[in-house]
């Protein structure tokens, strides 16, 4: 990372945090009864599961009276928050919000330092990309106690380290990536595809004498695998994570086309927003490949991450698709006259999104 870019990264991060804080302050002004809850207003839905893991570890069995269990969630993020809690003495929500702010700063600094690797053509393009990603409404999930910020940083760090030939760093970041969410495995798969295409004349030579690239790719999925092995001994079922997601949260494996068509046949908000997010993010990623705005391995990873939820239902797809930085690498391809108004519009929508988030029961 380039030290001279740190002040710029700090300013961009501060701007994003100020937009988020503006939304939070507006929320408390509109809902004064919530002011007494402080940062706890930011902890909804999956946050509660991450908190239970960070505070008490993984459940041994599903919870009585429900089909749910916290082993439906991956360990990377709650483990990191647990570390911050131990060092700082903060409670879960404060530690997670602080950690996500640090992740955001590191992400911006690394992104600004990696223009070439990310196919960003100028400093202006890099700034537009960073601000569009940080201010998009669903980037709310990069601020609140969710695993998105860690996933985005680990994804970027793994890719950049790989591109720079720092394969040990890439392997370590890749382990964090796949321990944060199993869909991180799409990155080593995409890097392998790119490697095989590039080295197609000497694939067997590479297998006969593996180098740092091969070794890094082999190590990256171990973050998820170690979790599955842990579940085998803790719960008795290494696939407990998938099973509880499928049964308790109704995410069975199904036909992605049928699931997408549900946006038309059963047009509730979750289905329509999921299908729209799929179309917008998937279209953006394909456009990015076509116009060489997104590096192929990142675009393939993004397509995997965006497509996966269509197999298991559309709930959560907007978050997976539109809180992912890869999609926003195409924003610098938007006509320049529209770029800053678009970023400003994103910021206004994020403020609205924060108000809606705080207002959740």
């Amino acid at each position, binding site marked *: 990372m380039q030290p001279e870019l740190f002040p710029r990264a700090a300013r961009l991060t501060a701007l994003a945090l100020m937009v988020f804080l503006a939304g939070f302050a507006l929320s408390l002004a509109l809902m004064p009864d919530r002011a007494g809850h402080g940062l706890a207003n930011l902890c909804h839905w999956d946050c509660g599961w991450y908190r239970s893991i960070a505070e008490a570890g993984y459940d041994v069995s599903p919870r009585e009276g*429900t089909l749910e269990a916290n082993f439906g969630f991956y360990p990377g993020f709650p483990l990191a928050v647990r570390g911050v809690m131990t060092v700082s003495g903060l409670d879960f929500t404060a530690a997670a919000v602080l950690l996500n702010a640090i992740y955001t700063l590191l992400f911006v600094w690394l992104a600004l330092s990696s223009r070439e690797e990310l196919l960003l053509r100028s400093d202006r393009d890099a700034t537009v990309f960073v601000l569009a990603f940080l201010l998009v409404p669903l980037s709310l999930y990069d601020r609140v106690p969710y695993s998105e910020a860690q996933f985005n940083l680990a994804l970027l760090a793994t890719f950049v380290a790989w591109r720079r030939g720092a394969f040990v760093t890439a392997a370590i970041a890749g382990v964090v990536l796949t321990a944060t969410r199993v869909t991180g495995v799409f990155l080593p798969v995409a890097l392998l595809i790119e490697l095989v295409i590039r080295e197609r004349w000497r694939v067997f030579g590479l297998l006969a004498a593996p180098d740092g690239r091969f070794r890094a790719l082999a190590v990256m999925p171990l973050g998820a695998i170690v979790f599955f092995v842990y579940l*085998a001994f803790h719960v008795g*079922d290494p696939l407990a994570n998938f099973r509880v997601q499928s049964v308790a949260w109704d995410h069975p494996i199904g036909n992605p086309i049928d699931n997408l068509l549900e946006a038309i046949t059963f047009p509730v908000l979750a289905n329509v927003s999921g299908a729209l997010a799929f179309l917008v993010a998937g279209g953006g990623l394909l456009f990015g490949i076509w116009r060489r705005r997104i590096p192929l391995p990142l675009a393939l990873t993004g397509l995997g991450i965006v497509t996966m939820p269509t197999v298991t239902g559309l709930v959560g797809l907007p978050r997976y698709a539109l809180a992912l930085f890869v999609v926003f690498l195409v924003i610098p391809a938007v006509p320049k006259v529209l770029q800053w108004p678009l970023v400003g519009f994103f910021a206004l929508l994020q403020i609205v999104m924060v108000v809606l988030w705080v207002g959740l029961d």
Partner: protein
Amino acid sequence: MSLRTLETVAWFALYGAIIFFLLTWNTASPAYNAVYVERTATVWPADAAAD
């Protein structure tokens, strides 16, 4: 076979063993299996459905 080739073999063997382990290991309780694996019960714990 060189040491480096053996490394490739070892990685493939490791991943093969992992896949075998993930697909075959199950020491969970019968109640868990009824709900999450066989899907013959829809209430957790499964015994509660019979009560």
